[in-house]
């Protein structure tokens, strides 16, 4: 990626990874659409032999040879048996029965996580710079599990099985499949046993935001990653005939529009079809759009396809307006014709103009790449949100990372729009999604693994979470949510935005073992069979004499659920959580501070003890937090933050309160 290394402070990576070759034995496995191995991001210059003990392979298949792997891309496999059993034989005119990526998504995610540095990278001149993955020294192994018709659980589980056996240290999965109990979820099952073998599993949170309770991949042994913006934009401006100017975004890079304004038409008035405003294939009347700029609205069909539909009908340009489903979130696309994506407000204003004028006109001016955009990051509207439906007492997502307009490596099989009519071929492309934020965290986890090989997956996640930031420099009310324009909450960003420089030296971590997670399953009243299905422990029975509590899981965040009192009872409920911190920074005395913000009532928080002293690395200290709250109406929520600091480190945990 370009820009994200600077945005995350990785351009000063000598500080992050003191020993030049630290991390070169870390392998990031990416389960996705495969890989395009010829990309410069997989250049293995400077890499030594593959790590000892690596059992992976470079599987041959259609247009893919064993020699396509090297010392950077050390493994490539494909898993299609489940897909083909359900969907029929692979159509080799559309996709390849091999690890080769005919989609682009997998090349994008794998290069984001651990691509080598490539100078002079850009997409058609946009986002120019040196592109690199988060962990440039880490090795990559690609496991192709996603096909044109989807990603099937039998293939995914087989790939996790193989990736762990091959020797991957971090697994990156930018995919999801709704919400289900952990014992029914193949990703959760695979991730549990990967975790038990020391493998960190990072998954995307989903793109179903800003709706509440829209998360996927919420098992507590998974690192769940939401998405935020960078400080980079690709501005384009719509200049109307009345002189008014509206800004949007565009990655169009071709012949510009004529300097004189063109007629502009609302797609809904240039179509006889129901929903003509959406510019669906075959719905625009050429005689009404020829030579004009067409205002289309988002929905149903892919954004880039709408551009093609306008071009195919003879339109000269397109303004693609958000609706209330997208609000003001601007996602840039490399359209096939001059186009500009605008927010809902601008779209409404442009529509009012062109519907009120006899001869409305407009033009689009392209502004290239702009960096230093403030505020940034803001939570992406599409990023899935909590609360966690499966286990409300576990706060998810865990954190956010860059996921909007991310440049990274691309397939050679399709152009940057992915449309079959797009004959352009690019080394890099720019796309958005929690798919893009997930491999950022996977790569950063690989960096931490390289620097701290003895840290468990939970310790690495804890380091990334407790050092994440939830406010802008100077502190002015917290990270914003692009969906509302207002302050976001831990249900949107979890612990906050990842800050790898601080994550490298967190001071303390909240560690967890597989046994701790099994206690968690006992707290959920899982049966022996269900525990066995998740954790492969046959005949395991939870101890009837023990009191298991989800609040006892040593998680780096707090989700506190209060019950709403019924009838006339107006009592104060107290919920206690216990945690244990392990020193990874050496001697220090940490003091706790808590801040809360709850509308309609006050939550009192008591930390006992409020001061903890550590004398050496590895030492553990426990504390209890008591949350006391009045009864509030069901559906109420509030938030807070608990910080432990020794003056050098700040170990922060988000708190979310809910009343049910």
């Amino acid at each position, binding site marked *: 990626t370009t820009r994200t290394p600077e945005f995350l402070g990785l351009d000063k990576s000598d500080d992050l990874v003191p020993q030049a070759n630290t991390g070169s034995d870390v392998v990031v496995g990416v389960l*996705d*659409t495969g890989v395009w191995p010829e990309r410069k991001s997989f250049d293995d210059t400077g890499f030594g032999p593959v790590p000892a003990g690596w059992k992976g392979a470079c599987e041959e298949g259609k247009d893919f040879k064993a020699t396509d792997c090297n010392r950077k891309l050390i493994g490539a496999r494909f*898993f299609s*048996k*489940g897909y083909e*059993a*359900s969907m029929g034989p692979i159509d080799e005119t559309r996709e390849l029965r091999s690890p080769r990526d005919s989609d682009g*998504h997998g090349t994008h995610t794998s290069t984001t996580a651990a691509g080598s540095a490539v100078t002079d990278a850009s997409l058609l001149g946009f986002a120019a710079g040196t592109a690199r993955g988060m962990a440039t020294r880490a090795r990559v192994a690609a496991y192709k599990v*996603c096909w044109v*018709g*989807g*990603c*099937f*659980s*039998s*293939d*995914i*589980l*087989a790939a*996790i*099985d*193989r990736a*762990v*056996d091959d020797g991957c240290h971090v697994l990156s999965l*930018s*995919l*999801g*499949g*709704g919400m*289900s109990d952990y*014992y*029914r*979820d*193949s*990703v959760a*099952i*695979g*991730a*549990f*046993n*990967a975790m038990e*073998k020391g493998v960190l599993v990072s998954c*995307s*949170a*989903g*793109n179903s935001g800003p709706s509440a309770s829209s998360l996927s991949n919420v098992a507590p042994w998974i690192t769940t990653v939401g998405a935020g913006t960078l400080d980079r934009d690709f501005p384009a401006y719509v200049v109307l005939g009345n002189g008014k100017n509206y800004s949007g975004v565009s990655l169009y890079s071709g012949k510009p529009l004529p300097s004189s304004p063109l007629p502009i038409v609302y797609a809904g008035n240039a179509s006889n079809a129901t929903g003509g405003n959406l510019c669906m294939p075959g719905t625009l009347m050429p005689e009404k759009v020829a030579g004009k700029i067409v205002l289309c609205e988002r929905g149903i069909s892919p954004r880039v396809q709408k551009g093609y539909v306008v071009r195919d009908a003879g339109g000269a340009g397109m303004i693609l307006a958000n609706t209330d489903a997208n609000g003001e979130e601007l996602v840039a696309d490399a359209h096939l014709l001059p186009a500009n994506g605008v927010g809902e407000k601008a779209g409404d204003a442009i529509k009012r103009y062109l519907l009120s004028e006899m001869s409305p006109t407009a033009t689009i001016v392209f502004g290239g790449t702009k960096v230093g955009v403030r505020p940034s990051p803001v939570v992406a509207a599409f990023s899935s949100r909590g609360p966690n439906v499966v286990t409300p007492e576990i706060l998810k997502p865990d954190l956010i990372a860059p996921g909007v307009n991310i440049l990274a490596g691309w397939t050679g099989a399709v152009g940057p729009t992915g449309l079959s009519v797009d004959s352009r071929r690019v080394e890099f492309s720019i796309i958005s*999604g*929690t*798919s893009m934020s*997930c491999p950022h965290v996977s790569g950063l986890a690989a960096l931490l693994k390289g620097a701290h090989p003895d840290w468990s997956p939970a310790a690495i996640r804890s380091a990334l979470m407790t050092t994440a930031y939830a406010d802008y420099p100077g502190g002015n009310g917290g990270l914003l949510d692009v969906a509302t324009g207002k302050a976001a909450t831990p249900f949107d960003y979890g612990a906050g935005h990842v800050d790898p420089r601080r994550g490298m030296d967190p001071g303390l971590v909240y560690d967890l073992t597989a046994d701790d997670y099994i206690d968690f399953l006992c707290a959920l009243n899982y049966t022996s*069979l*269900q525990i*066995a*299905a998740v954790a*492969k422990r*046959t*005949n395991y029975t939870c101890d009837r004499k023990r009191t298991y509590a989800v609040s006892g899981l040593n998680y780096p965040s707090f989700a506190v659920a209060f019950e709403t009192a019924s009838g006339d009872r107006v009592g104060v409920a107290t919920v206690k959580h216990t945690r244990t911190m392990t020193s990874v920074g050496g001697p220090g005395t940490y003091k706790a501070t808590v801040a809360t913000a709850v509308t309609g009532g006050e939550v009192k928080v008591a930390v006992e003890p409020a001061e903890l002293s550590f004398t050496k690395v590895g030492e553990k200290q426990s504390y209890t937090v008591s949350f006391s709250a009045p009864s509030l109406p069901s559906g109420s929520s509030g938030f807070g933050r608990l910080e432990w600091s020794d003056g050098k480190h700040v170990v922060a945990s988000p708190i979310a309160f809910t009343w049910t």
Partner: protein
Amino acid sequence: GEEKRQTYIVHMAKSRRPSTFAEHGHWYDASLRSVSSSAEILYSYDTVAHGFSARLTTAEAQALESLDGVLSVLPEVRYELH
């Protein structure tokens, strides 16, 4: 016509393998064979899960579920890229 088949992931209790089977794969195969004469194993899982996946009818899946050593029989789920 033949009843419609779909893919299931069958989780097995590895430690419950009868001693008559030298390898888990043989046990998985025999378990599958006991409910279906035609179903084939798609994958055997051995590192992060124990078991296999196969195309089964609903009745075959239910029959498998009742076998000793079978922990769960989960229908295939389609995931999507984010």
